[in-house]
């Protein structure tokens, strides 16, 4: 187990260099002079020189990269050109909102996806199977921002059941502890604010969670169908176990590994999809922060945020890989 983890960590080194090099190079891929692109053609020469210095563009390329790496290792992602705040500090402010949204989306996706996939497999070719798989295929074909707009239209504007944007209504204020509003409202014992935060979370989480939900449902179904044909399932039934026990304990447990792979991979998608979802729902998270930075051509912010997200994505994938070996010890010996 330890050997496996060490090997995976070693394999990560070239990838980490690649990620940092690619994000470092982003600013150098800007056609023309990055300073002119960022400041516009009418900026004063002093301001241009100042920005050139701030971005470190006066040094040779290898020095710039080494400096970028050194800063990164010291938690310094540079400063926003617009707000002049440290990028890492701003990211830390916006990150909890994205974590809350992503976890909620993953929760909906996993619970509904696995349940639908299991029922579809058990009742193969039934109307439920056909309908849920058609739904899953439609789900993966939908533009996430359009789904968001449609959800806002139906549930916020026509029915008026849920709020269309933001994380909390203005009348509530919650003392910040974790910056995850569902937890903070509970810690404050403010039940009304909790319900309000939950209501704000549902639509964006549903929009963001639909694609992973569809993929998880499809994967669970096909994985379950394969397992349900195995001899040990027949044995479990033959020894008189109840159907629920056979499906949940014997089948689902063994069908779970490929599903876990998909769940792990979807986290990366969620971090990317958050840009669309947060933009549509005015959700004050990292996604919207990146979007606003792009619109303002605030490249240090874009560069820093994308580096951090890629690093998190790689880390999540590593954790998922290690989790496999816990669930399925055979993998360690491959």
């Amino acid at each position, binding site marked *: 187990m330890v050997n496996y983890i060490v090997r995976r960590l070693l394999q990560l080194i070239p990838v980490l260099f690649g990620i940092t090099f690619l994000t470092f190079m*982003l600013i150098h891929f800007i056609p023309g002079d990055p300073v002119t692109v960022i400041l516009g053609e009418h900026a004063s020469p002093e301001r241009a020189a100042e920005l050139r210095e701030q971005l470190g563009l006066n040094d040779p390329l290898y020095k710039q990269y080494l400096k970028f790496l050194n800063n990164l290792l010291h938690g310094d992602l540079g400063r926003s050109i617009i707000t002049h705040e440290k990028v890492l500090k701003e990211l830390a402010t916006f990150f909890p909102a994205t974590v809350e949204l992503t976890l909620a989306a993953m929760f909906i996706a996993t619970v509904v996806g696995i349940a639908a996939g299991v029922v579809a497999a058990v009742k193969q070719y039934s109307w439920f199977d056909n309908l849920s798989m058609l739904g899953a295929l439609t789900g993966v074909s939908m*533009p996430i921002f359009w789904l968001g*707009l449609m959800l806002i239209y139906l549930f916020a504007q026509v029915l008026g059941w849920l709020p269309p944007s933001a994380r909390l209504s203005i009348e509530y204020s919650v003392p910040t502890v974790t910056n995850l509003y569902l937890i903070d409202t509970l810690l404050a014992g403010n039940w009304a604010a909790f319900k309000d935060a939950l209501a704000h979370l549902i639509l964006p989480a549903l929009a963001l969670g639909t694609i992973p939900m569809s993929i998880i449902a499809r994967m669970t179904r096909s994985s379950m169908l394969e397992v349900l044909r195995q001899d040990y399932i027949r044995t479990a039934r033959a020894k008189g176990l109840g159907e629920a026990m056979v499906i949940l304990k014997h089948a689902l447990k063994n069908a779970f590994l490929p599903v876990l792979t998909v769940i792990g991979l979807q986290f990366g*998608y969620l971090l990317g999809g958050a840009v669309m979802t947060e933009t549509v729902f005015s959700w004050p998270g990292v996604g919207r922060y990146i979007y606003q930075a792009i619109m303002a051509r605030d*490249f240090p912010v874009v560069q820093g945020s994308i580096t951090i997200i*890629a690093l998190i994505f790689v880390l999540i994938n590593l954790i998922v890989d290690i989790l496999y070996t816990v669930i399925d010890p055979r993998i360690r010996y491959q």
Partner: protein
Amino acid sequence: MGKFWEKDWIKRLLKNKAAVVGLIIVLLLSFTAIFAPVLAPYDPIKDGSLQNRLKAPSSEHLLGTDKLGRDILSRIIFGARISVEIGVISVGLALIVGTLMGLTAGYYGGFLDSILMRIVDIILAFPSILLAIAITSVLGPSLNNAMIAVGIVMVPSFARVVRSTVLSLKEMEFVEAARAVGANDFTILFRHILPNSMAPIIVQGTMNIGTAILDAAGLSFLGLGAQPPTPEWGAMLVDARELLVKAPWVAFFPGLAIMLTVLGFNLLGDGLRDALDPRLKQ
């Protein structure tokens, strides 16, 4: 996988109802794209009159009009051209680069393989839409740059599929035979291995067209892809949020067009995979 020039797979494909639905959608899209100038009742670009702004769907404007008074149906019809263009160009780009990478990595192995596959790993280390956003934000917002960005993020999928096919094919006897009669690497790769790798490439390509259209629409929605007044479906949704209450049709129809198109390619891609590789279906 079966060989794509053997006709059996066509029979299998046409027996699959979902795949046929997908095929019909794709054919309809192609037809609309080709005959857009004939099919569209109005000019898709020119602003309509003041009185014509934000008209609800009616017999005159079947899908309503947008805030500049342009006929939404006509814009969707012309948008089909752009979607086809996005699909063909970005997937074509990814297919050429990815296939060359996969062929080289799989055939030569060793150091070259390690380098190419690490590049693939690095691209895959980024959430794909985020990488596409980063690339377009750097290159500058335009439809062409969006297609390049979407193409780049799809390169790994082709490189991996082709590499794994080459790894198994290069051990086959027909490759050994070609080598024995003195064929050089180029001939072996492009005349013997590549034609036999076409089935997985076609399946991957079909599936990726849907994803490419979806991602490019997303970039346009964020203002990084097609620019106004281009009737690209994602770009048509840019102002839709503000107009949701007043004119929901402005948001509804372009999104529906994207969804149906992507669904079509996904259904066809699924069907092609099952038809070309019957083992997968079992």
